[in-house]
Every structure is written in C-alpha cells, then in structure tokens.
C-alpha cells in the first residue's frame, strides 16, 4: 500500500500529525544536509578514497545504486568522528594503512591506484581472513548486547558499510523498498516474485 493511501485511510486528523512528524524529519534532514558535502572530519582525503572504493566493491551498483552513491563513506566518517572510541578509530585507520600495504606488496601501488580486479582481490583476502577468524574468541565485553566496534578492521568495515548502506535513503527506499506504514497485517502471504539475479 502506498504511504499516502495508508494515511488517507487513517483519517484526516492523523494526517496533520504525520505531517508534523514529517516536519521533525525535515528538520533533521536540514541538519544533516548542513554537514553534507563538507570534507571528511576524521578521514584524510586519501583514506576517504580507500573507504569509498572499498565500500563500493562490497555493495556495488546493480539495478540500484551502490555504497558510493549512498555516501557510505560520509556515514563512516561520522561514526569515526562522533561515535567510535579512540581505540576503535585507531583500529580502523590502521586497517586502511594495512590495506595500502597489502596492495603495494602484491601489486606495487596503493589501493586507490589499483585496478578493480586488484581491489577485489584485496577485499577477497580480507573477507577470507575474517571468515577464518570468526570462530576465535571476541574481546570480552561488560554487556554482550552493547554495540561495539572493538573488532578487527574488516569486521568494522563490513558492519559500517552494511549499516551505512541499508539505512540510507537509497538502501531503504530503492534497495529494500521499506514501507514505513504498511497499513495492515497479514501473517502468512506469498513473497513477491524473486528479483532477477
């Protein structure tokens, strides 16, 4: 059901309230926009380029835009600047340096200068390394539910890329087609036909 149709069914009085919520959202949007497009605050231009390239290899453009268009790099810079601990940030920035070292060792130049095929090989190596270490004991946490980035670099990168992409307007509206107001509940209905792979 279209959101507008759902609102119509909910009655006129409610619509005003939704508009107010929209107003709240618009205010937030304006605040976010104020930060948009400005230079990254934690990542250097070179580090930022690695993040852009790597995130877009992980979630590329398909029939919907990928991580680069969804500006996942800006989300990652925000998290490093206003959310992460110093220790978590250090792991991430060191991971970017390691990315360049790995690429240099294999291909004789840095990650952003590498071809798409070379970059994919590097990401593949990180992914296999992480998979191999998944069964190892994670750092002890006071609260198991606590969201932490005290993780190996590529686990950080993986989490932040996925969160940054799937919670972006592109991820929510185009990729996942999330409906904020479904307007009905049906417990067990046929899934929509499989998308073309």
């Amino acid at each position, binding site marked *: 059901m279209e959101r507008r149709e*759902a609102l119509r069914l*909910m*009655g006129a009085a*409610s619509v*005003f*309230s*939704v508009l107010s*919520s*929209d107003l*709240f*959202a618009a205010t*937030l*949007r304006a*605040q*976010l926009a104020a930060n948009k497009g400005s230079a990254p605050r934690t990542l250097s231009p070179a580090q930022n380029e690695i993040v852009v390239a790597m995130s877009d*290899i*992980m*979630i*590329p453009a*398909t029939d919907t835009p*990928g991580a680069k268009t969804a500006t996942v790099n800006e*989300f990652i810079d*925000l*998290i490093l600047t*206003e*959310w992460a601990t110093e220790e978590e940030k250090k792991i991430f920035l060191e991971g970017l340096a390691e990315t360049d070292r790995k690429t240099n060792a294999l291909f004789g130049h840095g990650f952003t200068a590498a071809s798409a095929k070379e970059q994919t090989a590097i*990401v593949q190596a990180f*992914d*296999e390394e992480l998979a191999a270490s*998944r069964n190892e004991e994670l750092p002890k946490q006071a*609260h*198991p539910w606590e*969201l932490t980035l005290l993780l190996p670099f590529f686990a950080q990168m993986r*989490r932040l890329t*996925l*969160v940054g992409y*799937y*919670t*972006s*307007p592109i*991820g*929510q*509206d185009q*990729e*996942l087609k999330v409906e*904020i*107001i*479904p*307007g*009905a*509940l*049906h*417990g*067990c*209905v*046929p*899934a929509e036909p*499989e*998308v073309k*792979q």
Partner: protein
Amino acid sequence: MSSVKKPETYDAIIIGSGMTGGWAAKELTEKGLKVLVLEAGRPIEPDRDYVEHVPISEMKFRGMNDRRETLKNQPIQRTCYACDEWASKFFVNDTENPYTTDPEKPFAWIRGRQVGGKSIMWARQSYRWSDLDFEANARDGNGADWPIRYADIEPWYNYVEDFAGITGQAEGLPQLPDGHFLPPMEMNCAEIAVKEAIARQFGRERVMTIGRAAILTQTHNGRAPCHYCGPCHRGCITRSYFSSVNATLPVAEKTGRLTLRPYSVVHSLIFDPQTRRVTGVKVIDGQTHKALEFQGRIIFVCASTLESTRILLNSATPEFSTGLANSSGVLGKNLMDHIMGGGADGIIPGFLDRVQFGNRPNGIYVPRFRNVSSKEKNFLRGYAYQGQAEREGWERGIHQSGFGESFKNSLRRPGPWKMTFHGFGECLPNPANFVEIDKERVDAWGVPVLKIHCEWRDNEKALLHDMMIQAAEMLTAAGAVEIQPYEPNNPPGLTIHEMGTARMGADPKKSVLNKHNQAHDVKNLFMTDGACMASSSCVNPSLTYMALTARACDYAVSQMKKGEL
C-alpha cells in the same frame, strides 16, 4: 493538557500521570472530583513529540544511538532495548536522577519522567492474573497473603479492558483467564507451525497463543486501529495503543475537572497528626526549583513502584519515623522484578516463499506451565514465554562472508525464519530485597534518593535455567535447527516489572495497604501502582495495576460520598 492555575484545595491529588495516574485521573474526574495531577516531567504533545514514523535514514546515527551522549547522561537507561535513538528522549537523564546500589548488586532502574510516564514506551502486553497468582503466597508461605482473589478483581479487568482495548485470543486456560478481547493479531507461517508442533508434543499442558496486547485491531472508543508501522515505543499518532496520553488523560481533560501540572517534582506528603490524614503535597517546581504546596482531600500516589515508595520514605514524621504509613515496618521491603531472558532461538526450516506483511507490534505467548498441575522439585512458581518468529533481515549480512553483486542481491530477500522464546519468571517476595533513603545523595531537585538492595536468589536462578532448557525443548519439538539456548545475567530492574515495597494485605501489622489500596495508617492515602503488589506472578503486571487503580478509585469515591473520607 497543560492548563496551570493556582490551585485552591483539590478534591484529589494524583502523583504521576503514567499508567495508573492516568487511570486515576479518568476515574476520579468522571466521578465528579476536581483533580490535580502532578507530573515530575515535561508535557507531551503527540504531534510534536511522537517520532514513530521518522525513517532510520533521517536519524543521525542511523539507529546506532548517540553513544557518547547516552554513555554520559543515560548510562543506565540505555541498557533498556526501548531507549533507542528515537525514544531515548522518553527516558530520564541518569545524572539528574541518581540512585545508589550495593556495588556488587546492580539494579537497572528504568524510568520515564514526562506526561504519560512509561505508558508511552511500555511493551503493551496485557494479561490477567489468576488465583494461581493471588493464592501463591498463601500456598507456599513466601511473602504475605494477598487480601484479594481473582473474583474481586475480575469485574475491574473487564472494565479496564473494555476501555483500553486489548487484542487477544481466548484459550480457556485457568492460569491465564481470558479477557474481553478485540480480534487477535495473526500469527505468521512459522509461528503457526511451531504452535501446532507444541500442541502435538505437549497437548494442553503447553499452549502457544498470540500475544494479548493493549493495541487496537479495530476502531475502539473513537481511537483508530493499528497501522502496523511497528515501533510503538516511539509514540503513536493514531493513538492505537493504550497509554495515558493516548487514552485516559484526554477523557479526564474533557470533564473540565482536570488540572495537569507538569514539571512538578514531588518531594513529600504533608501529614496532619491531629486528623491522621495527609493534607497535601510538597512540590519542587522542575524548572524554577521553587518550593510549592498543594492541598487535597485524598491523595493517590501513582508515581511508579519505586518513586511512590521513595515519596513515602521521604515523608517520615516523628510518629512515622521510618516513612509515612509505615507502622508495619514493611515499607520499602519485598522488592521484586521478573527474572527475564532465559530462552532459546532456532531456525524453522521452510516457508521461504512466504512472508509476513506489516510490522506486528506484538508477539506470541506461552502461558505458565510449571507448577500449574505439576509439582516441580527444583523451584517454586513458574514462568511464561514471550517470543516471535521473523525472517532475518539485511543485518544477517554483518556476520556472513561474501561481498559484491550476488551478496547484495541475496540480502535484498529476507533470510530464514527464526523463532525465539524468552521467559519471564516469578520473583519471590523477600524482605532482604529492599529500598531505603540514601542520606548521602539528593537528585537535581534536592530530593533524597533511593538506595536499592536487590539481587536474584536461588529460586529465580532455577527458573531462568529451566526457561532455557524448556525453550530449547519446544524448538526441538518444532523441528528447529541451529538452536541457540541462552541464560543471560540481566540485573533485576531491567525487565521494568518492578513491584512491591508497599504491599497490600489484610493485616495492618504486615502490610502498608489494605484490600482497597488504601494505607492502613492514613485513610485518605492510596497507592495503586506496582508498589502495592504482594507477589509478582510471572505475568506482565500493567493490566492488573490498571484494574486495581479503577477499583480503588471506585472505593475512594464511594467512601467520600458516605462521609467516611
């Protein structure tokens, strides 16, 4: 809802505007009383404050919460699942609202200070207690016997359900009486399969039913049905779930007899030893910090379990040196909360061509089956499960391997069905779990704070362990794979079902309140929130608080009319 007038004397003062304060406001104003509601926190305007439809893409930290801010100002509140990036504004600032505990015995005191209190963020599960609960203390000798039985409260369950609107499915179980239900919400494919498997294995001993919740599945008393957006704890602009802001306070407001005063932090009650009545309330203005006084003929303390008891403890007089209305000495004692979270999850194979449409703000429920007809060797009383099945979302990709186009395409589709059971276990009343005033600390308004002494004991721990085993057993019966059992070490308080500390009872020497929630020692003083509970059941308590409040209001007004109050 924010008319502020300089008060004369009110017929009734209600402290708190949440679940029970809202009910008291509705009942007393409808019965003709001129009522003042004192709320410690700020006003709530749904159009301005509710945020349930704000998309995650509009949130600055995309649902990861403002970690630094909450670590600084809400280190306790943030441990509650509902204190998320949208709804954290409905939870208190812990630095302004301190309390203390024994260092090795944490207690998570989760609080909401605003008009509506925690009724804004509550989980809406609404179940009747039964005589299995009301007779529990008498049967095994823990705590003091309840002064009421199911027959006393049944008409009041009917009454509050008819107003609030409770969705649910009648099951005819003696341990979980059916109510006046609105149509049930649908179970999804995997839940139906699990329900049928449990029925095959356990017969009528274990029954899985759809959750009973204070959410409208059809238009009810002028409120619109649920539109299935999901996150009720962020508010509801269609007022489809029950809260005082959505339901009771607007009715009280319409009578023209309600004065609602936000920013009114109650310091203590004023007791007159001559008349042996409370005559009024000492208040600190939340914004100006000015001391104020309000007068009332009767006073309903509905500030939440521990805040209500704190007010009485802070109202000590020469006669009641350990707290007002505490001739019994049990004020502050027998704090309880449900021990929560023992359980398991597992993947239910199949149904991959089926989905659930709509975000159902309600789960499934497995009523208590331990010590109902059986008699367990390892523990007294029992537990119930809440849970749900859902298809995993894109988040599963965080813990998988792979990347690129095929990975992205795989995450576009939902993952397998995962079924979860988590238990809620009864906590025995124990006088060694208690609160007192910490003489060393005051809050941001200069009001002395609580020191909370509470820990899980052997019976609760045995329940938690059994919850885990039996959840895994039910999943096994349902053919689940990758079953993960758990037995988490949650601190008491985190379930937010804190109860007791001013219990009801027939004997004034052993209880604070009588069978009408009226203080034995002070006839015009009533407490109807969780503080009054003599035992904890394993059943979610809010519906019982509502029923007890409406019942106490009826009694109080009838006594006033007879000239007894």
